[in-house]
């Protein structure tokens, strides 16, 4: 090879080599290994790993009783969580682009929960639900606060939803604010001169023009809620009676608590496929609705 070709090889290795090396080691190899292990009876401890074909998958679909409840819980949680956090984030952004005096302070407040990690937030809210809510209930007599928060299936579900929305709405608000700030003023004014009401401006001018932000926010919210783990672990640990166990938590417990690594990797592989399909569908649908200015 010529000197020039060698120089290209050197540059390729120097610039791309390190990132690709760590990425391959930490992401690609485990990902491929996981696909292999999902067809085995690996238990994480013993040296021998036997090929079991589709056994793990048939067990998930036929016998294993906790994957589908976890999947169903995650789906319900994702639908409710994504809708609510986007509505709140959008609403906050809509109001906080108006010329309020305390606009910046309010934006800070709504965003702040987001910088705190899900694990610590879950523990904080455990206290709020158990002690704080009952104190509010005693003081005000409102029945809502005296429910057995986190104690039964329904309050545990809504408990996680409340914390999830409280944590994530501010992040989406930031993205929606950036998009709304970029909606051209003359378009808004033209709509107002034509006699459009506030609702009509919102629905027919603002929403279509910020569709790219809607794509991003839906994408983020789906990905957060579908992969939720930290909040789930610290708030309910999947309880009561596994009723609030997310798929991510289910996979974790299957491998590291039940020591069924093979079964865990099979679930993890299915989880990956579901996430990939949702992502593709969702990006395609929202991209087709975008409007060029």
């Amino acid at each position, binding site marked *: 090879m010529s000197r020039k070709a060698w120089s290209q090889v050197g540059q390729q290795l120097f610039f791309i080599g390190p990132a690709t090396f760590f990425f391959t080691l930490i992401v690609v190899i*485990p990902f491929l290994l996981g696909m292999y292990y999902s067809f085995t009876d690996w238990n994480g401890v013993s040296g021998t790993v036997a090929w079991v074909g589709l056994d793990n998958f048939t067990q998930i679909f036929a016998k294993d009783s906790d994957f589908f409840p976890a999947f169903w819980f995650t789906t319900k949680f994702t639908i409710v969580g994504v809708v609510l956090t986007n509505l709140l984030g959008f609403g906050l952004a809509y109001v906080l682009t108006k010329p309020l005096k305390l606009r910046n302070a309010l934006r800070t407040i709504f965003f702040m929960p987001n*910088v705190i990690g899900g694990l610590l937030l879950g523990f904080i809210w455990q206290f709020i639900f158990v002690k704080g809510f009952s104190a509010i209930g005693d003081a005000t007599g409102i029945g809502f606060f005296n429910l057995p928060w986190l104690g039964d299936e329904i309050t545990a579900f809504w408990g996680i939803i409340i914390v999830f929305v409280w944590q994530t709405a501010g992040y989406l608000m930031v993205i929606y604010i950036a998009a*709304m700030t970029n909606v051209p003023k003359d378009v808004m004014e033209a709509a107002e001169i034509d006699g459009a009401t506030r609702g009509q401006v919102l629905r027919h001018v603002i929403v279509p023009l910020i569709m790219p932000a809607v794509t991003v926010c839906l994408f983020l919210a789906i990905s957060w809620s579908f992969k939720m783990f930290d909040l789930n672990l610290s708030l309910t640990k999947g309880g009561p009676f596994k009723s609030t166990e997310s798929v991510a938590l289910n996979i974790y417990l299957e491998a590291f608590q039940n020591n069924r690594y093979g079964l865990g990797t099979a679930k993890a592989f299915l989880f990956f496929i579901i996430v990939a399909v949702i992502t593709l569908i969702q990006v395609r649908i929202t991209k087709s609705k975008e409007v060029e200015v």
Partner: protein
Amino acid sequence: MESGKKYGGRTFVTEVVMIIVGLVFLVPFYFLLVNSVKSFGDLLSNAANWPAAFEWSNYQRAWEITKFPQAFSNSFIITAASILLIALLSAMAAYRMVRHNSRFNKALFMIFVAAMVIPFQSIMIPLVKVTGMIHLTDSIGGLIICYLGFGAPLSIFLFHGFVKSVPVEIEEAAVVDGCSPYAVFWRVVFPLLKPMFVTVVILNSLWIWNDYLLPSLVLQSAEHRTIPLATYAFFGQYTKQWDLALPALVLGIAPIVAFFLAMQKYIIEGITAGSVKG
């Protein structure tokens, strides 16, 4: 859309409503702070009241039991080293991929982008085996290496978009002046990437500082624990001991909240820049 209209009665009502909503948002922090300085009995009798007496010793005990300085310095070292290395290595890789857009590099870039879809839980089980085999387990350096792998895709994606907008003429001029390809990157390109460097560092720092799952799988010994790991271990031991748990939580969130309030402008900009393309 940000309108500069006059401040009318309607806006005033909106403002008042939003202040109330904002206060409701802050209620959890009120409960957390107020109860963290109560004695256990005071806390149990009524969680909403102002403390009867301030028990600052709660904080002293929580500080000692969680070994807070140790956890803080672990979190700090891991986050700082990871974010700087991720940003540097990703910038280098993205630069080369844009400027030398060969078929191989195109395919490689596609693989990085596609990997962003993979949920962490899909690889964590075999990852534990891989980290065990190459002795990355229970070492802070090993954990940093893991973050380099997981952080690369999004960071490369963000830098890739940014490098494309950097005019290539500047680099060509530098080459004519006798700069080596490495010097071109260091002296010419890297300084121009600064805005995206800040974005990548911010996005990764919030993620890594708060991450629980990966450190919990890689680190084992107590002296390596990060703040989330120390908090989790503490909760396992002192369940329902709220007079210790709450001050521990306040200590745990204080650094990141302080970081946010100090760096708010950059964080908001970083999120906006990072999401527009994400």
